[in-house]
């Protein structure tokens, strides 16, 4: 009656082998490495780069333990941190001659020391969270109302030029938050304007309302378009963050969207947190507007007088005031690149801008109409605007390639280009959560978590073995299998292991032993009531099963709640907790029964069972 079919043992053995295989990489530990990846879309990490790295290392007299090219990045492993740092410098010199314009990111990293055949089977060690390996975690909130305001502003400008083209006379266009208000003298004009806007601006929805003697057309961005604007804004910000983080040289940055308006950035191993925050926190947006050159504006520029209607006063970086029109011609969205360089004619320092197609078209129109006038490039940081540069337009500029030159040093050109590039965020962002963990603390946390699990495990198995004798030994082996399977599943899924996760591991082992206690107590009770050993074992396992299921379901409900509503540390706890409950059902019931059957199942005339004291009333 206590025998397993062969296939059940086969399942057990396979589960154990797979478990052992995927747990294996965790034993090899990690080694210092240098990771090379592309910083630009044009740069590729290929065999050519590998050869350059190899020769650079040879000249530096360094021999790597391993050099592997996989999924677009080159990983070079060393046996000591010393060699790693020397190698980083050597590779940096060979691959990145100009630090201001890096084509490749050369970063320090830790690589698993597991042999190649394991890596080839996608068996990797558990993915350690930031609290275990050290690093920085940021959560950034994208200011969506600002993105929508900006969109509304540029739509208002577009409406203005469209109505002018169509020769429809209006008596003023203004923007109030995300609402664009256009006023008309009479109803027919309004209706014709409404038709035009309806045709050309699919993103807007309109309502008409009388406004004193005039008629007012209120256009708002419709929900579909506003969702699209938000999606684009967050995507563009993520791309920008990617570029900025490349400057930092982080081996495996994580940049993810969370919810509709948040971005999570994790930079493992980053120690210079101040610089990281500085680069991420540059919440700048860029706008190109025309400078008002009227006499009124001129006088307002010099004195602190009232600015003309429809203009604003901004300061240049040297403190000079500039009166700029409110209408936005282009935003950072239309700027694809900004690079420092030189004017081809007079070798003056210059900044080269590249605009996208829409930007190029608008720019061409504007420059044709305003030769000799000045335009201002404004950078907004945290709501405050600053004029980066206000050059005079010399001629019509087509093709989307713009050069800003004159009165600039090379350093200034560099700075301006950097500011302009940084300005290509679609909407401002704010850090709303930040966690920094020093590398030594990470190592300590690993040790603490490891010790908790180990000593708890030792104490529980010692007690079980003494109290339940052979059945206790079997329960302990089952508990060890549970731990093995849990580690294997975590390694397989590459779920992030955190310190609370390690605590969950210890807790789940403590809870998993419950199933074996239930079984063992039940077997004892059956024996106490005078059952034969074989039928006592059978009844013990059978009857305990429903209770084990019940108790695991209630625990699992709690685990799932944590998974669904938890964030950060709680999530790390919940993942391990839930997985641990599932693996414990397998090991505590199915596996331990297999061992018992193997040991006792064959003995037809079983006289006694080694399960500790069975007293009789």
């Amino acid at each position, binding site marked *: 009656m206590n025998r397993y079919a062969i296939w059940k043992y086969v399942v057990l053995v396979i589960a154990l082998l797979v478990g052992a295989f995927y747990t294996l990489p965790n034993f090899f530990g990690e080694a210092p490495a240098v990771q090379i990846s592309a910083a630009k879309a044009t740069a590729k990490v290929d065999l050519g780069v590998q050869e350059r790295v190899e020769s650079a290392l040879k000249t530096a007299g360094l021999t790597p333990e391993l050099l592997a090219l996989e999924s677009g990045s080159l990983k070079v492993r060393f046996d000591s941190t010393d060699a790693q740092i020397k190698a980083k410098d050597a590779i940096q010199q060979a691959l990145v001659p100009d630090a201001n314009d890096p084509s490749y990111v050369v970063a320090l990293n830790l690589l698993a020391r597991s042999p190649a055949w394991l890596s080839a089977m996608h068996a990797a060690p558990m993915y350690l969270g930031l609290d275990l390996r050290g690093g920085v975690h940021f959560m950034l*909130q994208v200011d969506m109302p600002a993105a929508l305001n900006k969109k509304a502003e540029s739509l208002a400008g577009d409406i203005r030029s469209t109505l002018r083209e169509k020769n429809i006379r209006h008596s003023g266009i203004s923007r109030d938050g995300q609402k664009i208000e256009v006023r008309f003298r009479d109803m027919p004009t309004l209706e014709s304007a409404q038709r035009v806007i309806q045709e050309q601006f699919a993103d807007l929805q309109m309502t008409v309302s009388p406004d004193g003697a005039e008629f007012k057309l209120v256009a708002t961005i419709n929900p579909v378009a506003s969702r699209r604007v938000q999606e684009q804004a967050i995507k563009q910000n993520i791309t920008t963050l990617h570029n900025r983080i490349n400057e930092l040289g982080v081996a495996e940055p994580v940049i993810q969207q969370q919810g509709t308006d948040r971005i999570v950035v994790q930079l493992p191993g980053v120690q210079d*947190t*101040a610089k990281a*925050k500085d680069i991420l*926190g540059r919440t700048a947006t860029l706008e190109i507007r025309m400078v008002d050159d009227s006499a009124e504006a001129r006088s307002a520029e010099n004195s602190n007088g009232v600015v003309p209607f429809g203009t604003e006063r901004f300061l240049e970086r040297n403190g000079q005031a500039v009166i700029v029109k409110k209408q936005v011609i282009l935003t950072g969205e239309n700027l694809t690149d900004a690079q420092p360089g030189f004017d081809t004619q007079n070798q003056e320092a210059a900044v080269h801008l590249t605009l996208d197609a829409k930007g190029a078209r608008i720019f061409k129109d504007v420059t044709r109409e305003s030769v000799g006038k000045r335009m201002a490039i404004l950078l907004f940081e945290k709501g405050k605007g600053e004029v980066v540069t206000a050059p005079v337009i010399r001629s019509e500029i087509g093709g989307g390639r713009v050069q800003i030159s004159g009165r600039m040093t090379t350093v200034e050109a560099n700075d301006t280009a950097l500011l302009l590039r940084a300005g290509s965020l679609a909407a401002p962002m704010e*850090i*709303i959560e*930040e*966690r*920094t963990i*020093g590398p*030594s*603390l990470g190592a*300590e946390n690993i040790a*603490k978590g490891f*010790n*908790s699990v180990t*000593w*708890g*495990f030792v*104490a529980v198995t010692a*007690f079980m073995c003494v109290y339940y004798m052979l059945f206790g030994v079997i329960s302990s082996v089952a508990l060890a299998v549970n731990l093995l399977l849990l580690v294997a599943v975590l390694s397989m899924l590459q779920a992030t292991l955190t*310190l*609370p996760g390690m*605590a*969950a591991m*210890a*807790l789940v*082992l*403590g*809870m998993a*032993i419950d199933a074996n*206690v*239930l079984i063992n*107590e039940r077997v004892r*009770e059956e024996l106490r009531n005078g059952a034969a050993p074989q039928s006592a074992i059978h009844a013990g396992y059978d*009857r305990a*099963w*429903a*209770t084990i299921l*019940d*108790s695991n*379901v*209630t*625990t*699992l*409900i*709690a*685990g799932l*709640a944590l998974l*669904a*509503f*938890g*964030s*950060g*540390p*709680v999530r790390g*706890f*919940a993942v391990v907790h839930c997985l641990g409950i599932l693996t414990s059902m397998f090991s505590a019931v199915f596996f331990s029964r297999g061992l018992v059957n193997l040991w006792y199942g064959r003995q037809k005339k079983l006289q006694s069972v080694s399960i*500790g004291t069975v007293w009789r009333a």
Partner: protein
Amino acid sequence: MEFFKIRKDIPFMKNAVAFNAISFITFVAAVFFLFSRGLHLSVEFTGGTLMEVSYSQAADLNVVRAQIAKLGLNDVQVQNFGTARDVMIRMPAAKGQSSAQQSEQVLAALKETDANIQLRRTEFVGPQVGDELAIDGLKALAFVVVGIMIYLAIRFEWKFAVAAIIANLHDVVIILGFFAFFQWEFSLPVLAAVLAVLGYSVNESVVIFDRIRENFRRFRKMQTVEIIDNAITATISRTIITHGCTQLMVLSMLLFGGATLHYFALALTIGICFGIYSSVFVAAAIAMWLGIQREDLIKGQVVKVEGDSEDPNSGAVV
């Protein structure tokens, strides 16, 4: 080895009033402290900045406080964390100042007195995130309570579901009461521990209820009170051994887990101790007062074979 040689059923239900009075008093005390002292919520919930710095020698907290006071920051808490060399600094969120500026300012000020200090950890949580976390925590609690009640109502009967939830929620309140009384820090991991305890100690009640149902079926002549007494007596050894094993693990966390896991393990310890108490003494008594009867559990079955494993209603017995 055997710890429990209990020959006669222990008359738990005879003393039910006394047990419930004890737990009612503890409960009221916990609620009182929760309201009078409140929870000492961590930065995760309140929003603000937390810094952990490490000195090369034992740190003089007064010097640290004086340095920070110079910056004009209010409500800053400074305390040792784990060892005398590690200092934890907690600051409420300051308006108009980013976390980066705040923590860097403080670090710079501290470096004036001791250049060798090391920044081990910073944590900044914006106020909006804190509110969300608190709301999510309550949602998770509601989800667990409702989920477990539905499960128990399906598996047993609503009276058991109500009894189990009351008994175990009272554990949760008592854990919170401890945190309020001692002003221990209530952080996200502690919340996780509280919810894990809720799920874990409900299964104690499940085991006892399973046995009560089994007894109703087996001993047709017994009174409800006797049946409950017998059920609790029969399961008590298992209850104490499993909880003991879990507590061994938690103890190991308490000893080796360091300061980060300290309150997490503490919450579990209190939860486990009161979990035993409430499952054994409280849950069954509440079910009794709610008036459980044989008919509630054995519906429309006149003759029943003992322990029929085919019976869908037959729960496990231990």
